[in-house]
């Protein structure tokens, strides 16, 4: 078995992962910017009046700060949560697509229908899945052709006498047994 080398077999490509991370950071920064703006708007109203008025305004803000900051937190959660949900759906379809493709190809194989090679779209991840499946099918087909080729070769000699035909067929079966021994 050929060892898997990460350079050659792409599972999740670094640019895909980095772009996802960058998008997460942008969403995070934007949501943090919104919460900062909301808090600035709430807290930056001028405190006008004499000492008593400012004192009461400060105490009032102390009492009502929790609902205000909870509202700002809710805005943050909703905005960031929705943006992250959209990001996950639209970026991770590069993983969901290949999985869907593999499921259809494997269903096709199990149904006994003509097996077609698995191909992914440009930009899809997990390309090693398609490559390994295609290599497996190619090897199976190669073996099948070799087995059938050996049997057909024996059949061609059946145009000669009966003994030669049977002897060639027995020889083909013996070779087939050897060829089959690689499967365990």
């Amino acid at each position, binding site marked *: 078995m050929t060892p898997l080398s990460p350079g050659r077999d792409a599972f999740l490509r670094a640019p895909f992962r980095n772009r996802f991370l960058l998008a*997460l950071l942008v969403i995070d*920064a934007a949501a943090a910017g919104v919460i900062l703006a909301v808090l600035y708007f709430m807290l930056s109203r001028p405190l006008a009046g004499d000492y008593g008025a400012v004192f009461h305004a400060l105490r009032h803000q102390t009492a009502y700060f929790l609902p205000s*900051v*909870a509202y700002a937190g809710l805005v943050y959660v909703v905005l960031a949560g929705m943006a992250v949900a959209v990001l996950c*759906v639209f970026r991770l379809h590069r993983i969901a697509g290949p*999985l869907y493709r593999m499921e259809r190809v494997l269903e096709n194989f199990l149904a006994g229908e003509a097996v077609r090679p698995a191909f992914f779209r440009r930009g899809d991840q997990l390309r090693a899945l398609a490559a390994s499946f295609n290599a497996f099918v190619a090897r199976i*087909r190669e073996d099948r052709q070799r087995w059938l080729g050996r049997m057909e070769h024996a059949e061609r000699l059946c145009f000669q006498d009966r003994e030669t035909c049977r002897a060639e067929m027995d020889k083909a079966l013996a070779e087939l*047994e050897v060829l089959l021994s690689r499967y365990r």
Partner: protein
Amino acid sequence: MNDLGQKKWRKIVFIYPRLQGGAVLAFAAVVVAAGSYFTWHIDRDVRQALWDVSLTAHYHFRSAYDVVGAAVVRHVGALLAGTALAGAALLLLGALRVRLATRRIVEAFRRMEDGDLSTPAGVTGPGEFASVGRQVDEVRARTQEIVGEVRAEVDRLRKQPLADEEFLGRWTALKEKIGRLAP
């Protein structure tokens, strides 16, 4: 339509609720946890600061923001850093799980390619990966079954003394069995 008058294909966005939904829930949990922690902490600190400043003799500020602005910026910065770190950790963990699950499927195909049809894929992973792993095992079992039938038939044909007619009938049946392998 593009410049050449060819119809453009619509980009298909595949949605697997177990894959994307799981990721959405995990990231949303980080956002909710960070938002709640932020709300609790900033409320405690800002209220205390406003209470303390209200007790001073002279007010040298125009708004409450002048008093708690630095604390607010510090808390928002902590929220940003915390969420970014937790998000990055979650992303790396998810990428690791995807990579491990994919590697197991790829290794299973390579084992099968090398003739090992008896080792199960043993894929565990996020969402649909386990489902694909089960299908890979079914493909392995199916291939093993056909190869087993072919091997048994070859053995019978070699060892049993059969009349020519029966031998030829079984010979043809053997070819059909071989033909069922990855048609």
